[in-house]
């Protein structure tokens, strides 16, 4: 297996992008990554597109074929990867394995989603189609609903409080104001969303015990990466970022069939595999992008990947340990909470954000000083398909 490096990274601002089609967004992000890698007028050998909803929301299929056509990347190999909200991570993985195997040298990985094409009800329904078609979906369950049921159990078992969840919303939306690619660019005020009696309207219950600001927004957006063998990446202007480790694991589709529904085994396993391959430990990570589609997930994942002991993640967040400058900075981009969660884009966007961090090219107010190793976790379904990547800055 060859070592694989990321030599190009690009992202377009997430949010509600009424003027753009799904194809526009995928094309813009791809061009940014190609330019970033200095491949402006060159081609790649293969293209992997992460997308979950093109078929349902845009009534468009064979998206990767359409993209190579728009970008004139023919005759590159191309395919679309659908893996729910982990589609982006799965696209990165496919690109990684393709280069590692020696079969392809230059690969474009792009993830994108256009969810705001439809009303909120339809978007909620679209996301809910990943639940079990007989045992869950017909009842009206939604992903925030799954998260609500999980949160209730997690709070009870590990003593997570609303105070802890609040720390995540406040931190991530504050960081979002510094990120030019973020969907939500508004810092929250503790009084306005919690302490004041007016919070009942500002931050209503969304899926009990979760409130509006515990949830990520519904977004449009795209992000892209260029991968190549590390050997070929060494003479480039920007420091190549090594994909040092990767892991993926699955779990039962319904929560009730897990021995312990608060145990996100797929997160633990995916992260363990990624750390093993990278020969690193959780303590070696300097910056992480975790899948905070719901605030509880940032806490639970920070424990399951090994940053904190079970039951300590919420306290650590409330104590500021996961902020910039803290012991373990998490979601300095604003995370899904503020960057937004265009489902197919997220897994790629997380890697793009870590690439920016490890290249040390961010402004001071969101650069983790001397960051050498980063982790991403892309969480599909309700934890039934999870990918983790360990990235490392290569010393030149």
């Amino acid at each position: 297996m060859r070592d694989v490096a990321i030599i190009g990274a690009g992202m377009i601002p997430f949010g509600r992008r009424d003027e753009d089609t799904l194809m526009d967004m995928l094309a813009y992000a791809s061009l940014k990554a190609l330019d970033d890698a200095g491949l402006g007028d060159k081609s790649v050998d293969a293209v992997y597109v992460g997308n979950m909803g093109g078929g349902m929301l845009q009534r468009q299929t064979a998206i990767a074929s359409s993209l190579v056509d728009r970008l004139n990347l023919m005759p590159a190999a191309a395919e679309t990867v659908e893996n729910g909200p982990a589609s982006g991570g799965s696209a990165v993985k496919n690109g990684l394995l393709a280069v590692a195997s020696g079969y392809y040298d230059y690969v474009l990985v792009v993830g994108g989603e256009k969810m705001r094409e439809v009303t909120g009800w339809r978007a909620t329904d679209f996301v809910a189609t990943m639940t079990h078609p007989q045992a869950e979906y017909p009842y009206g369950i939604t992903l925030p609903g799954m998260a609500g049921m999980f949160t209730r159990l997690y709070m009870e078992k590990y003593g997570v409080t609303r105070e802890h969840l609040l720390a995540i919303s406040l931190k991530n939306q504050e960081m979002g104001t510094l990120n030019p690619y973020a969907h939500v660019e508004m810092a929250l005020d503790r009084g306005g969303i919690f302490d004041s009696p007016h919070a009942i309207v500002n931050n209503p219950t969304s899926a009990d015990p979760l409130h509006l600001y515990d949830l990520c927004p519904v977004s449009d957006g795209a992000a892209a990466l260029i991968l190549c063998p590390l050997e070929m990446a060494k003479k480039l202007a920007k420091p190549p970022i090594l994909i040092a480790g990767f892991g993926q694991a699955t779990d039962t589709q319904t929560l009730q069939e897990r021995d312990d529904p608060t145990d996100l085994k797929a997160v633990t396993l995916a992260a363990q595999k990624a750390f093993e391959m990278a020969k690193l430990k959780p303590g070696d990570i300097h910056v992480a992008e975790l899948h905070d589609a719901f605030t509880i997930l940032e806490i639970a994942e920070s424990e399951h990947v090994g940053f904190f002991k079970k039951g300590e993640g919420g306290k650590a967040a409330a104590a500021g340990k996961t902020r910039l400058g803290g012991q373990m900075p998490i979601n300095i981009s604003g995370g899904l909470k503020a960057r937004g969660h265009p489902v197919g884009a997220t897994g790629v966007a997380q890697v793009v954000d870590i690439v920016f961090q490890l290249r040390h090219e961010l402004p001071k107010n969101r650069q983790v000083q001397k960051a050498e190793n980063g982790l991403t976790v892309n969480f599909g379904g309700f934890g039934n398909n999870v990918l983790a990547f360990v990235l490392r800055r290569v010393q030149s």
Partner: protein
Amino acid sequence: MKKEIAITAYKCKKCGKLHYPYHDRCLACKSREFEQIKPQGNAKLLTYTAIFNLPWGFDQRFLILGVAEFENKIKAMGQIKADSVDQLKVGMKMKPSWEPIRVQYGEDVYGLKFEPME
């Protein structure tokens, strides 16, 4: 007329593990032979939520859903008949029934409902 609860769970003939919904191979021993089991008795509430941002097809203000465990250990999701989550607590006894849970293509879809008994 009260309808029978039309859920089938699957008990592994080799190791006895109980499954709902269906799997082609046992989650414990990978065996493929199952005995069909019907849920029995009342149920115990394991977790629940009230969803206020509902998908297309639901016109009410909110919907309370939960997962409960029947007396013969089958666990399943259902809609909960309550006015508010304040009436619920984990571990409470629930009466199951089989009732319309939504309308799809103009027709009632039936499914599990649970009603608090305390």
